[in-house]
C-alpha cells in the first residue's frame, strides 16, 4: 500500500514540476501555436515555395522560463521602498508576437546616422535589413525617462564598419546624448544560434522612439525621435507604491489639418495613395477553436488564392498567422483594413465562409503599416 502512495506522489510530482512553471494560458497558447506550427510545417513542406509564412516561428512566441533552482533566498520586504513602480507599456501588440523568420534572414548594422530636425530628428542605421522582420523590433522605456531600449532580434553588427560600442560624440545642440550598442549571441538548446542587438539610446530630453516603417527598407532602419505627445498623470499611489502611467490626453479633439482633411475625403485620398501590387494580410485567431487562423490561412492560400488575386489585381501574401493573447473571443470574424483597402477587404469577405464584419483600422492602431488587412478569426468560423 505504501508503495502505491509513493508511485502516486512520484507521478504527481513529475506532472506538477512540468506544469507549475507555466500558466495554463501560456500552455494552451503554446499548444495552439505548436499545433498551428505543425500544420503549417506540413503544409509548407508540400508547398514550400508558395506559402509565405516562415517555419520556426512559434518558438519565438514562447516565453521560456528558467528552470527552478532549489536554493531559496529569503529577503525581508523593504517597506520603505521609494522607487516608483512603473507599469511597462505593452512592448508590442500581442497578436503580432508570432511568426518570426529566424532561419536565414536578419539584419546587419553597418553604420548609423543622426538626421537632425527641429520637429522630429531621425536615427538611421544603415546596413542590410529584412523588412519582413521589422515588426518584431521591440522598443521599451529604459531605466530613466530619457533612455529607450531597442531590441533588434536576428541582428549582427558589422564589426569592421561599426567598431564602436558606446557613442557619446553627439553635437551639443542635438537630441542624443549616448548610444550604447550591445551584441548578444547565444546558443540555443537545439544547437542553433540566437543573435540580437540591444540598443540603449539616451537623449538629452524626454522623447518617444518610433520605428519609421516608411523610412525603413532593406538598406536602412530608421527611428523617429518624436517629442512626447502624451502627458504623464500620477494618481492614487501611496508613497511606497506610486504608479505612473503614460496616458494619451484624448480630451482635445484631433487637429484636422489640410493633409488629414485630404486623406480623409475619399475623392482627394484617391489622389494621394499609390497602387500596391501585393496585399499583406495578417490572420489572428480570436476564436476558442484551436488552429482557426491556420485553417483560414490554408483556405485562403490554397483554395481561393488565384481567384482572390484575380479579383483584387494584387498578390495575396499572408505575413502573419497568430492567436490573440488578449483573451478576446469575437463572435464574428472581423476584417480590419487600412485606408484605400476597402475594396480588397470586401473581396476577402465575399470569399470567406460565414459572416464577417469589416472596419477601417482604428486610429489608435494605424501605426502598424506593415499589414494592409488584419483578419481576426471569430467564433463563427468553422
Amino acid at each position, binding site marked *: 500500500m505504501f*508503495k502505491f502512495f509513493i508511485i*502516486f506522489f512520484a*507521478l504527481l510530482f513529475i506532472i506538477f514540476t512540468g*506544469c507549475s512553471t507555466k*500558466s*495554463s*494560458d501560456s*500552455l494552451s497558447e503554446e499548444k495552439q501555436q505548436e499545433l498551428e506550427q505543425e500544420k503549417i510545417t506540413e503544409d509548407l513542406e508540400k508547398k514550400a515555395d508558395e506559402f509565405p509564412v516562415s517555419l520556426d516561428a512559434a518558438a519565438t512566441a514562447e516565453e521560456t*522560463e*528558467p*528552470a*527552478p*533552482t532549489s536554493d*531559496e533566498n*529569503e*529577503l525581508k*520586504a523593504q517597506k*520603505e*521602498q521609494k*522607487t516608483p*513602480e512603473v507599469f511597462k507599456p*505593452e512592448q508590442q501588440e500581442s497578436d503580432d508576437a508570432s511568426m518570426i523568420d529566424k532561419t536565414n534572414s536578419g539584419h546587419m548594422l553597418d553604420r548609423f546616422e543622426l538626421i537632425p530636425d527641429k520637429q522630429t530628428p531621425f536615427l538611421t542605421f544603415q546596413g542590410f535589413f529584412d*523588412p519582413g522582420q521589422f515588426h518584431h523590433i521591440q522598443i521599451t522605456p529604459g531605466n530613466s525617462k530619457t533612455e529607450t531600449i531597442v531590441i533588434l532580434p536576428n541582428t549582427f553588427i558589422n564589426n569592421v564598419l561599426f567598431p564602436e560600442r558606446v557613442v557619446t560624440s553627439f553635437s551639443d545642440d542635438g537630441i542624443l546624448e549616448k548610444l550604447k550598442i550591445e551584441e548578444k549571441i547565444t546558443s540555443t538548446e537545439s544547437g542553433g544560434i540566437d543573435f540580437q542587438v540591444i540598443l540603449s539610446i539616451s537623449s538629452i530630453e524626454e522623447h518617444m522612439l518610433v520605428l519609421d*516603417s*516608411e523610412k*525603413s527598407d*532593406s538598406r536602412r532602419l530608421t527611428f523617429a525621435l518624436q517629442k512626447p505627445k502624451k502627458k504623464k*498623470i500620477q*494618481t*492614487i*499611489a*501611496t508613497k511606497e507604491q506610486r504608479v505612473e*502611467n503614460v496616458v*494619451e490626453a*484624448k*480630451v482635445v479633439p484631433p487637429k484636422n489639418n489640410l*493633409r488629414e482633411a485630404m486623406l480623409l*475625403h475619399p*475623392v*482627394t485620398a*484617391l*489622389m*494621394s495613395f*499609390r*497602387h*500596391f501590387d501585393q496585399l499583406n494580410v495578417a490572420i489572428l485567431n480570436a476564436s476558442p477553436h484551436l488552429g482557426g487562423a491556420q485553417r483560414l490561412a490554408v483556405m485562403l492560400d490554397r483554395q481561393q488564392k488565384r481567384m482572390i488575386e484575380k479579383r483584387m*489585381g494584387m498578390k495575396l501574401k499572408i505575413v502573419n498567422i497568430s492567436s490573440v493573447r*488578449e483573451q478576446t473571443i469575437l463572435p464574428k470574424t*472581423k476584417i480590419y483594413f487600412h485606408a*484605400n483597402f*476597402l*475594396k480588397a477587404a470586401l*473581396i476577402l*469577405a465575399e470569399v470567406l465562409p460565414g*459572416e*464577417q464584419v*469589416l*472596419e477601417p483600422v482604428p486610429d*489608435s492602431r494605424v501605426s502598424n503599416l506593415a499589414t494592409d488587412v488584419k483578419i*481576426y478569426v471569430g467564433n463563427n468560423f468553422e
Partner: protein
Amino acid sequence: MWEIILNKKIYHFVLAGVMFLAAFNLPVFAFPEYTSRQKALKLAGVLDEGFFRSIKIASVFVKNRGEDDYYLQAILDDGSSRKWLINRIREWTHADELILSKNRALVFPSQGSTDFGVLDKNEFYRTVLNATAFVKTFGKHDVLEGKSLILGVRRFRILQAGDKKFLTTNRFGERYRYVLELENGSREYFTYTDAFGFLQRTALLQEDPENVSVLRKTFKVRELKKIPLQKEDELRGIWRFGIEVVFDGPLLTSPDWFPYQVVEFKMRDPETGRYKAQFFLQIIFPNSEKIREVSGFKNHEYLRYVEIDADVEHQKRVILRAMINPDALDLPPFIEITDRNSVIVNFYSTTDQSLTQSPDLLASHSAGELPRSVFTPDQVETEFETHYLEAVGMIRAAQEQLNTHLRIETYFKALEALKQAALSAEFDIQIAQALKQRDILLRTMPKLIIRNVQMTILAMQLDGEDAKPDPEMTEILLKQLIHAERYATTQDQQQKIVSLQSILR
C-alpha cells in the same frame, strides 16, 4: 513493479490525480504565479498590515524559487505562515478575501502581467463625487475603438443589493463595485481596476474642458432625407449622393465620431432557398437615440433598404443601415456635419474601375517597403506637399466654380502647381501622382476650353452683330485654344479648335 502498476487500485489514484489536475488547471494557472524581485518587494510592502480573511497580516516577506521567480511569504496575526503566489493574491483581491489597510484596493490592470496598482478608494470617491464629466473611452474591437466621448455625470453610486450588476463579475472575474449614472441616460458599471484606470487616465473631470463639448443629452433622430445624385468630380467622372440624418439639436462633435462598418449577413434566398451573403453598410451614431418611428427608403441609387435603428448591443447608439452591392462600393462613405442639426453621409459612385488604382509603378514590384501615400509620415510639410496640396485644393475649388472660364483659369493654376510639385518631388510615388493628376487635367481641358469658347462666341452673337469683342478676352481665349490644340486627343476636337480660332481671329 509491474504487478503494482497493473493493479487496479493504481488506476484510481491516477484518475484522481488527473481529475485533480484538470480541476486545478483552468483558472489557477491563468495568471502568473511568480513575479520579479522588485515587484515582489513592493507588493509585500503594500500588503503589510492588511487583512487576509479577516486575520491581520503581521508581516510579509519575499522569497524566490529561481533567479527571476519571486513570491511572498506572509505571517498572519494568528501565528500561521503562508506561501502566497501572485495569482492567488489576485484571486483573493477579487473575492475581497485580501483587503489592504487604509481603505485601499489592490488591482492588477494588465491581464497576464503581474504589474499591479493600488487604488486609494477614499481619493477615488473624492474625485468621482466632484466629477462633472466622464471621459468614456471605447475599448478594443468596438467600432469606436480608441475614441472618447465626454459625457456629463449625473450620479455616482456604490453597487448594493438589488442593483443590476451587484456581485456579478466581468470576464476577468473582477466584481463590479460602482455605477456611474450619466446625464445622457446611460450607466457605466465598473470594477476596482476600472476605477484605477479612470484615475490613471483622468477620466473623471471636475471642470468642463474648454475646447470640447460635454455631452449632457443624447441626439435624437428626427428624420432621414435623400440627397440626390450630383457630380462630385468632373475630371474622374465621380458622382455623389447621400443620406441626411436630421437630429433634434446641434451635434457637438466631429465627423470622425461617426464611423462606418460593413457587416455581412447570410440570408436565405426566397427563390432558391440557399443562403446568400448580403452586405450592409452601417454608420454608427454614438450618444444618439431613436425615440420615434423614422421612415427609411427602399432604394436610393445603389443603396437598398435604408433605415435607422437603435443598437441593441450598446447603450445610446443608433445605426444607419443600408444594403449594398459590394461591387458598387468603390469608395468609402464620407461623413459631413451640417449647420442644420444634421449629418450627411455621402456615397460615391463611378463607372471607371481604374480610378481606385493609382499609378502602377515599377518600383512597387520591389519587395522593399515603399511609402503608401505621396505624403511623408512625419508631420513636416515638404516643398512637394505644399505644391501638391495647393494643386489638389485648386482642382477641388475649380469644380465648385460655375463660371467655366474661371474654372479653366483655376485649372491652369493647378497645372502650374502640379508642375512645381513634380519638380520638388523626392520619391517616385510623388512625381508619378503629380504627373497623373496633370494628365487627367490635360485630358479634360480641351473639351472644357472648346465648350467655353463656343459659349462665349454664342453669347457675343446673342448680344447682336454690333457687339464688339473684347480684345483682351479674345486673346485669353486664343491662348486657351492653343493649349487645347496641343493636348486635343481626337480629330473632332482638332477641327473644332481650328474653326474657333478662325472665328476669333
